C-alpha cells in the first residue's frame, strides 16, 4: 500500500473494512462512472439489471423480509434505499428521463460522499436474495449489490482478506489458503489413513485420474477445518462405486469473484474448468459450498471458455441424492441419534433450488429431524453471506445485525445439531454458536451421512 493510500484509510475511519489500495478520493467519481458504463455496455447483465434499476415501485416490501433491517431498524439497511444509491446514479447518467428531469425522477449526480455510503451499504447486504422472493415486481436487490461491489472493486474497495486470498489463488499457490502442493498431497494421504481406520476398508481419494466421471473440488478451507465433510464425501463416492477424482493442481473451489469482481470470477472459474478439461472430466462436482456452486451454475455460460462449455456443474448434494435414489447408499439412521435440523444455504436454496434433496438425504441418515422456521425459500441467511464471513473487520456486525435472526431461529428449533452444507455458512454459524453460547453443534451434511453409511462386505 502506498503512503498516500495509507493516509486515505486513516482519514476515513468510517469505512467498515480495510482495503489494500483504494483510489484517491478525487479520482473515484470518474472511475466509477467509467466502470458503470463498461458494465452497462458488456453483454452480461442486460435485461435483469435494466429491469431492476428501472422498475422498483418503492413499496418497501423488501425491508419486511430483510433480516438485517429487521434486526437493525437502520434506514441504511432498507434494501430499496441501498439499491437506490446506484439507481440514482444510473438514472442521472444513463437514462433520458434522468438527464432531462434530474431529481424529479430520482436521479442524482455522483459525489465522493455517495461512494462512501456505497462502501458501507453494499457491505451490509449478505446478498441472500430473501428480499427478492416476495417482491411484487420481482426486483432482486442482490444483483444490484453485486454490481455495486464490482464498481467499488474498480476503485480498490475490496476487503483486505478477500483481495489477499484471491491473489494467493491466482498466484503460484493456486488456492486461497496458500497451501503448497506437497502439503495438500500429504493432507490427502492423511485423510485416506483416517478413512481406512474409520471404515475398516481402504477408501481412496483418487488424484488426477484422467477420464473420471466426476471432477471434485471443495473449498480449500474444508481440507484444513472440515475434514469430516471431505471424508464423508469420499465415503459416499466409494459406497456408490463412482468414478471420481480431485486435481492436485487446481482443487480449491472458492471463487470470491462472485462477491465483487467479474474479472476475478472469470479467471478462477476458468482455472477450475481447465483442470477438469485437462483430466477429460465432464462433470465438475462442487463440495459443500454454496457460493462456488452458484458461481459455476450462473456464470459458466458467460465466462467459461468455449472449449469448456461441454462441462457441467453440479453440487455434491445432487450427486449424493441420486446415489441414494439409485439405492447405492445404505444408511443406518440410528448412528445419528439426537435432534437434527437443516439450514438452507442461500446460494444452494434460493440460488440453485436445492431444497428437498438435502432434506431427503438427512432424513435418511438421522433418527430425529425438525425443521427450522422459516425454512426453504424464506430461510434466514447465516449472516455471513455475500462473502462477509471472510471479512474479519465485519465480525461484530455479523454477530449482531447480520446473525441475530439466525441465532433466534436455531434456538427455537430445539435441535442439537444444525446441518449446513456450505463452508461459509458453517464458519459463520460456528462463530454465532460460540459467540451467543448456543447449545448446538454445526456440522456438514456429509459428516452426518458418513456416520450413517453402512459398507457391505462386497463394497
Amino acid at each position, binding site marked *: 500500500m502506498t503512503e498516500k493510500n495509507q493516509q486515505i484509510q486513516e482519514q476515513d475511519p468510517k469505512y467498515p473494512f480495510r482495503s489494500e489500495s483504494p483510489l484517491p478520493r478525487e479520482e473515484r467519481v470518474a472511475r466509477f462512472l467509467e466502470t458503470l458504463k463498461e458494465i452497462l455496455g458488456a453483454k452480461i447483465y442486460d*435485461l435483469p439489471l435494466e429491469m431492476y434499476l428501472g*422498475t422498483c415501485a418503492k413499496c*418497501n416490501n423488501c425491508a*419486511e423480509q430483510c433480516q438485517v433491517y429487521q434486526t437493525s431498524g437502520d434506514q441504511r439497511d432498507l434494501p430499496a434505499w441501498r439499491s437506490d444509491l446506484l439507481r440514482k446514479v444510473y438514472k442521472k447518467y444513463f437514462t433520458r428521463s434522468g438527464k432531462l428531469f434530474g431529481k*424529479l425522477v430520482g436521479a442524482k449526480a455522483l459525489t465522493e460522499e455517495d461512494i462512501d455510503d456505497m462502501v458501507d451499504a453494499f457491505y451490509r447486504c449478505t446478498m441472500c436474495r430473501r428480499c427478492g422472493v416476495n*417482491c*411484487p415486481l420481482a426486483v432482486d436487490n442482490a444483483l444490484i449489490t453485486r454490481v455495486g461491489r464490482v464498481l467499488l472493486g474498480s476503485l480498490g474497495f475490496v476487503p483486505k482478506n478477500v483481495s489477499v486470498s484471491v491473489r494467493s489463488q491466482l498466484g503460484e499457490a493456486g488456492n486461497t489458503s496458500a497451501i503448497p502442493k506437497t502439503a495438500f498431497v500429504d493432507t490427502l494421504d492423511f485423510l485416506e489413513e483416517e478413512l481406512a481406520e474409520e471404515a475398516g476398508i481402504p477408501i481412496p481419494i483418487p488424484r488426477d485420474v484422467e477420464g473420471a466421471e466426476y471432477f471434485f473440488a471443495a473449498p480449500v478451507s474444508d481440507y484444513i477445518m472440515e475434514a469430516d465433510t471431505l471424508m464423508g464425501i469420499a465415503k459416499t463416492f466409494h459406497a456408490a462405486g463412482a468414478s471420481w477424482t480431485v486435481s492436485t493442481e487446481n482443487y480449491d473451489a472458492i471463487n470470491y469473484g462472485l462477491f465483487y469482481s467479474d474479472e476475478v470470477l472469470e479467471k478462477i472459474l476458468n482455472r477450475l474448468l481447465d483442470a477438469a478439461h485437462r483430466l477429460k472430466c465432464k462433470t465438475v462436482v462442487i463440495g459443500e459450498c454454496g457460493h462456488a456452486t452458484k458461481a459455476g451454475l450462473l456464470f459458466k455460460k458467460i465466462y467459461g471458455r468455449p472449449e469448456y462449455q461441454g462441462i457441467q456443474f453440479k453440487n455434491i448434494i445432487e450427486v449424493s441424492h441420486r446415489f441414494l435414489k439409485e439405492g447405492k447408499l445404505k444408511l443406518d439412521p440410528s448412528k445419528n441419534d439426537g435432534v437434527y435440523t437443516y439450514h438452507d444455504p442461500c446460494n444452494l436454496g434460493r440460488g440453485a433450488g436445492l431444497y428437498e434433496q438435502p432434506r431427503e438425504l438427512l432424513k435418511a441418515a438421522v433418527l430425529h429431524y425438525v425443521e427450522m422456521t422459516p425454512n426453504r*425459500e424464506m430461510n434466514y441467511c447465516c449472516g455471513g453471506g455475500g462473502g462477509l464471513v471472510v471479512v474479519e473487520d465485519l465480525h461484530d456486525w455479523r454477530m449482531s445485525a447480520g446473525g441475530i435472526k439466525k441465532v433466534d431461529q436455531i434456538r427455537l428449533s430445539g435441535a442439537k445439531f444444525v446441518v449446513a452444507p456450505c463452508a461459509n455458512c458453517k464458519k459463520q454459524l460456528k462463530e454465532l454458536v460460540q459467540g451467543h453460547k448456543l447449545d448446538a453443534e454445526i456440522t456438514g451434511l456429509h459428516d452426518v451421512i458418513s456416520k450413517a453409511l453402512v459398507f457391505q462386505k462386497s463394497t
Partner: protein
Amino acid sequence: MTGSEFIARVYPYLAVGLFIAGTAWQFVRWLRMPAHVKWTLHPVPQGLAGQLKYMVKEIFTFETLYRFNRRLWVGTFCMHMAMLGAVLFLILNLIGWTQGFPVRYCLWLLAVSLIYILWLRIVDGNLRVLSSFEEYFNLAFLAAVATAGLRASVPHASSSSRSYIMGLLTFQPVATPLSGDQLLAVFLGGLFLIYLPWSKMIHYVAKYFTYHHIKWQED
C-alpha cells in the same frame, strides 16, 4: 376545428394510439434484450400452468404485499381493483348491461385509495425516504384523472358521456360539444395514457419480464 373539438374527437385516438405504440415499443425492446446472466430465484413454479396460477393470484390479490406490508396493501389493492372495476363496468355500461353508477363508485374508490397511498408515503418514514417526486407525481396525476372522471360523470351527464364514448368506439365521434368537465377528463385521461408507458407504472409489462424472463428463467 377548434381546440375543444380536437380534444373531443381527435385527441382520444391519438392518446390511445400513443399508449399502444409506447407499450409495444417497450415490450419489444425488452423482449429483444438478452438475459445472459442467469439470475433465477428458486423455487420456480412448475410449468406454464404453475407460473400462470402464481401470476393470476398475485395480480388479483397482491399476496406478496398482503403478507408483509398490510397497510400499503389496503391502498394498493383497492387502487388496482378500482381501475380494473372502472374499465369493466364501463364496458358493461356501454353494452347496456349496467347503469353508470358502478363506474362512479370505482372512480371514488380509486381517488380515495390514491389519496391514502399518498398520505402513507408522507407519514411513513421509510416510504418517505424511498420516494422521489416521481412517486408522488404519479399518484397525484392518477388521482386527478379519477377526480376529473367523477366530475365528468355526474348522474345528469352520464347519458351524454356514454353516447360520447360509444361514438368514439364506433369511429363516429358525436358532434355535440362536451362540457368543460368532460373535456378536462378526456384531456387528463389521454395525457395519462400517453405518459404511462414511459413511467415506472409500465410495470404492467415489466412484471412479465422480471418474473418470466428473469426470476423464473430455466436452463
